[in-house]
């Protein structure tokens, strides 16, 4: 219990919030809007899983938003050309993995700081996309939306897929040697190296992996709308990093898990609809999200000052 205290405190905050909504705005819990809300967050969840890996490895990737846009547009163009979805999906994932691998190569191969590298690729990818596409939307064929299923069925597929992925990755993080290598490298890369782990390889793979997950997320987003707009990934990186940090993943690496990142994401995602249902002006959304992030960071700071190890 003590081990997961940090994650459980986020779940607790989420529970209190939902309880408050149940009392003051029961309309929040109508199934269809709720399903839509969760579906909208499904791609974010997938990217957040990857970001949790990156941050646990004591790195950061702020280019996920741009990678998301590029993957979305490219996947959309392929679909518009008549590629079957079963080919577009792996193509999007492969493209994401490739972009992530470029980050990984620069960070792990040349030992450059990841914040600078991914800032550069973030700007390059975004501006490159603007230049090529001139802000043009991609119209998607009908078969793409909800994978050709009914809306509810499509939404359920997306949500179930995202949650299944979360569970698989969360378990892998704890039960696979690879997961523990990520923690070891994030805690102390030199100690890991002396133990025969290859920190640079781990770092490279983590970046490639977050790229692949971003490609997958782009595909999940594609299924939700009739068009792809080139700015679809704008600000995604901040949203994802915030969710991960609120969920108790230490920005200094080595600590945290995906369950916490999931809870953090839900907590932040509920703010906007909750405000609507409570008839509070939507301007408050960012302020409240900011306050939640600040609270989480301050709590972590106080905890590590006390010398807690968990």
């Amino acid at each position, binding site marked *: 219990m003590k081990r997961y205290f940090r994650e459980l405190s986020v779940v607790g905050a989420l529970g209190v919030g939902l309880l408050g909504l149940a009392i003051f705005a029961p309309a929040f819990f109508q199934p269809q809007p709720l399903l839509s809300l969760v579906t909208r967050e499904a791609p974010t969840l997938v990217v957040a899983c990857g970001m949790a890996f990156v941050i646990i490895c004591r790195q950061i990737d702020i280019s996920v938003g741009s990678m998301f846009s590029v993957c979305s547009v490219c996947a959309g163009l392929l679909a518009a050309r008549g590629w079957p979805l079963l080919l577009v999906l792996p193509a999007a994932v492969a493209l994401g993995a490739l972009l992530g691998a470029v980050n990984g190569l620069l960070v792990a191969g040349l030992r450059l700081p990841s914040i600078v590298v991914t800032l550069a690729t973030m700007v390059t990818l975004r501006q490159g996309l603007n230049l090529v596409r001139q802000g043009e939307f991609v119209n998607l064929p009908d078969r793409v939306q909800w994978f050709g299923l009914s809306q509810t069925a499509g939404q359920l597929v997306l949500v179930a897929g995202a949650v299944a992925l979360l569970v698989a990755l969360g378990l892998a993080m*704890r*039960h*696979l*040697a*690879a997961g*523990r*290598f990520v*923690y*070891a490298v994030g*805690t*102390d890369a*030199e*100690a*890991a*190296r*002396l*133990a*025969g*782990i*290859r920190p640079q390889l781990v770092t490279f793979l983590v970046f490639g992996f977050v790229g692949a997950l971003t490609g997958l997320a782009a595909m999940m987003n594609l299924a939700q709308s009739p068009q792809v707009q080139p700015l679809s990934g704008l600000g995604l990186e901040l949203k994802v990093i915030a969710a991960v940090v609120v969920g108790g993943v230490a920005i200094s690496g*080595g*600590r945290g898990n995906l369950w916490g990142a999931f809870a953090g994401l839900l907590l932040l995602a509920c703010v906007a609809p909750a405000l609507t249902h409570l008839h509070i002006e939507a301007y408050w959304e960012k302020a409240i999200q900011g306050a939640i992030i600040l609270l989480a960071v301050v709590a972590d700071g106080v905890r590590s000052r006390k010398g807690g*190890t*968990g």
Partner: protein
Amino acid sequence: MSPAPLLQLRQLVKNYGGVRALRGVDFDLHAGEVHALLGENGAGKSTLIKIVTGAHQPDGGTITLAGETVTALTPATARTLGIACIYQQPALFPDLTVAENLALRLEPAAAGRRVDWPARRTRARELLARLGAAIDPEAEVRSLSMPEQQLVEIACALGSGARIVIMDEPTASLTQKEQHLLFAVVRELRQSSVGVIYISHRLEEIFALADRVTVLRDGQSVGTHPVSAINEAGLIRLMVGREVSQIYPASESVAREVVLSLRGVGCAASGVHAVSFDVRAGEVFGLGGLVGAGRTELARVLFGLTPADAGEITLNGQRVTLPSPQAAVAHGIAYVPEDRRRHGVVLELPIAHNMTMAIHRHLFPHTWLRFGAERGLAREFIRDLAVKCSSPDAPGASLSGGNQQKVSLARWLATKPKLLILDEPTQGVDVGAKSEIHKIVRRLAKDGLAVILISSDLPEVIGLSDRIGVMGGGTLRAILPGQSDPHVVMSAALGTAEKGAA
């Protein structure tokens, strides 16, 4: 001699936790004197310096500066009282110019002050000229050589009107020619009646430069002598002349087949060159020498961290290359690093995870972690090595130093190595845990492991090893039998004796 010494230390005591670093040190420094401080690794030299510069507070004793007793010395007050320290690695700002570096130390630290650039440059030029140093005040410190940077440090000391200058192994990274320049500067300082505390392992420097020498041993001063009244043999006797107070477990092992054989091994990047020796199964091969002799560097070559670029390495009769730690592990080499806090035990991870970190491939062949197997293995080692802990799931940080060392050792024993390299296994470990680790090392050798033991603790190397390789200047200077006379080992380490037979 002037009546009131510049600096007088009386019965100085300093403890770090349970370790008694200084146990009653007396030391005098007069104006216009170069006073050498000599002692083995861990004799208390660094601690003494830290107290005189105000970095650490003593637990007992008095510090008297020019006749006045000082209490609560801080780095800032030490500086205003005229104490300056020149460290081995100059602590300058590499991206600022020489003049700016000097100004940062010497000009008042008022943020709103207007900078008088011409005055700043003139002052820097004057100070450097006083030292006879041909350094451009406008040069960036990054572009200067190590001795030039040391000269800038000395200029700082001069500019601040320092009356006491401490030099900690100033020649460690200098060439012969640069050393002579530095000696000239030290003599200049003496002329201008500055007191110099000069720390060095090189006896010839002490005889060339110092007026008096004080020898520290086990945190006590064991004698102050005018340099003219003592010779090298006398100094060495003072440095090591102690009873071997500890009983070391006797060697019961019989040396068997050769496990590791080095012939002319070198690595230019880490300064190791022309090292040749054999280590047999069942023996403890000690590596002695002073700090900076190249022992850890050699260990890192053998573990593939800085791969060898010269010579031959033979393991179990097969010629091998060790380009990476993975290759070294695959060949059955294990390395328990020095500084376990930084590189040995991952403090945040549980003990069990720490112990299995190097053997994932064997313990979990099908990639799924098996927590049962992991805990079982951890329990076995905890029992075997008598690790005192609450459970295998407790974090590494909850253990004492000696027990952390055992966890670090367990990680490597779990790989079932043929050659075990221990780097300072008992550093910072209390006496009880130390003798436990000694017993473990002996037992491992008896069980047929080849052990290379690196230790700066001279009695430990002598008492625990079957044979002792003495290193100095990045190469092997001598191979001596275990239980050798400490004087002989120290002479070899200092390079004063003839080369021993290899």
